[in-house]
């Protein structure tokens, strides 16, 4: 599935839930199902700044695609991470950096989450895109290197 398709599917899933308690229930479930980050990656380096709760994000390149794993000490945060991971994980750095992420706004997360939470969400997103940029830059320079 493309990044756009995953986003559209999430928007449709959320649109079936009438009230915010149901939406939270869904987010919490996603949090509980989130593939956990390997304990060894829960390092200060992988800790995302700007989150009120602790969030660790680890990135790996597998067959040209970026794979994200993450964890948090807060379950709702984990659920939100899970949303991000399901949208962005398993895509090439190019796809991630070029992705137009509209689902957060469309689901209504920005207006319903507490400001600290939505700031955290944005930091997380920024971090994920930064990793993609970094991988893209590295592969670009390697490519340039071989051409020379």
């Amino acid at each position, binding site marked *: 599935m493309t990044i756009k398709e995953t986003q559209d599917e999430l928007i449709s899933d959320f649109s079936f839930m009438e009230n915010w*308690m149901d939406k939270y229930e869904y987010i919490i479930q996603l949090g509980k199902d989130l593939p956990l980050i390997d304990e060894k990656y829960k390092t200060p380096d992988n800790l995302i700044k700007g989150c*009120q709760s602790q969030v660790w994000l680890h990135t790996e390149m597998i067959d040209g695609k970026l794979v994200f794993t993450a964890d948090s000490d807060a379950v709702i945060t984990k659920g939100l991470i899970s949303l991000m991971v399901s949208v962005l994980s398993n895509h090439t750095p190019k796809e991630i950096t070029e992705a137009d992420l509209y689902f957060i706004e469309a689901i209504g997360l920005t207006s319903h989450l507490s400001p600290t939470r939505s700031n955290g969400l944005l930091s997380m997103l920024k971090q994920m895109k930064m990793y993609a940029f970094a991988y893209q830059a590295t592969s670009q320079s390697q490519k340039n290197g071989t051409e020379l």
Partner: protein
Amino acid sequence: MQHVPDITVPALDVEKIRRDFPLLQEKVYGLPLVYLDNAATTQKPQVVLDALEQYYTTINSNVHRGVHHLSQRATDAYEGARKIIASFINAQKPEEVIFTKGTTDGINLVANSFGRSVIKPGDIVLVSAMEHHSNIVPWQIMCEDRGAELQVIPMNEQGELLMDQFSALLNDRVKIIAVTWVSNALGTVNPVHEIISRAHARNIPVLLDAAQAIQHMPVDVQELDVDFLVFSGHKLYGPTGIGVLYGKEEWLDKLPPYQGGGDMIKTVTFAKTIYNVLPYKFEAGTPDISGAIALGTAVEYVQKAGIENIQQWEEQLMEYATQRLQEVEGLRFIGQAKKKSGAISFLVDDIHPYDLGELLDKQGIAIRTGHHCAEPVMSAFCIPGTVRASFAMYTTMEDIDKLVAGIQKAASMLR
């Protein structure tokens, strides 16, 4: 069978009081608001809102300056508010009441002026382990500046100060003690009379942070014999941006001004400025006139309800809340002092306080989560933060029932 506590009929007509507060009639997410974040700020009664509006629509003018009619009326109202507050805390003179921006501003004023005039390298400032950041950082800044040392009165696991250790910390190097009367994070009521008398036995002055006390219990500065006492207007049903520093006249006379500017001077030449008398010496610039007047109105509102009645009602609320919260499986209280007031901090199992807070919010229940600007307290208990429910004179037993039901629901979703 569940024990139903005796609920004495309050001397306070809580339902009538609630009708005086417009914001309590509002809904959030379509649900009636359950406001249990009163330690952060209280809601305002209509009379306070009216006082603010009336000031700007009828007497807005600068104080202490003009000879014209409006300026006289504004000055009378502003100074009238000072008298109301002086009488509320039983200050000897209205001049001992300095208007500030709030508790933080008052502590900064004392730390700065006291530091510059009294503190020398090697001196000690004593604070307690349960202080709000605003009763730590101003002293730290001053100590760093003066080459002095900040020492801490420790507390036990219940969140009570260790008074033996407090006594052991007292020596001739200690120049001032700054402690909170009631802990904002734990609800602990500290033995302030004992602290003051032991300090005074060694001629050490005491500053009390009364930000979480002034709205919950009678405060008599003469009976306390306290040297400085600070509080905020907005936690006492008044507006934000206005607060009070009480200081004994002898101390305020002795201390140099904190800020320079208009109103705090008698004469100014480029060679030398003569400072104004109390209280103006510490009120540089145009003050928050409307805020001060409206705070006076808020204090009158509290006096009309009766601070003793408020205290009695809130003690019943605390008792009922403590008992009802114990029904929640896995709930543990953070801070179990014998004497608590106004606030209850807790955690449920290993549920993150932010998760719990967010799900309570979505049920229309406003509580505070986090470290409550008291990170050292959270470190002492090895926790990232707590959930805190805090009460006011308009809090009802029904609010507490809704809180408990809200926690049950949130916890069942999060477990």
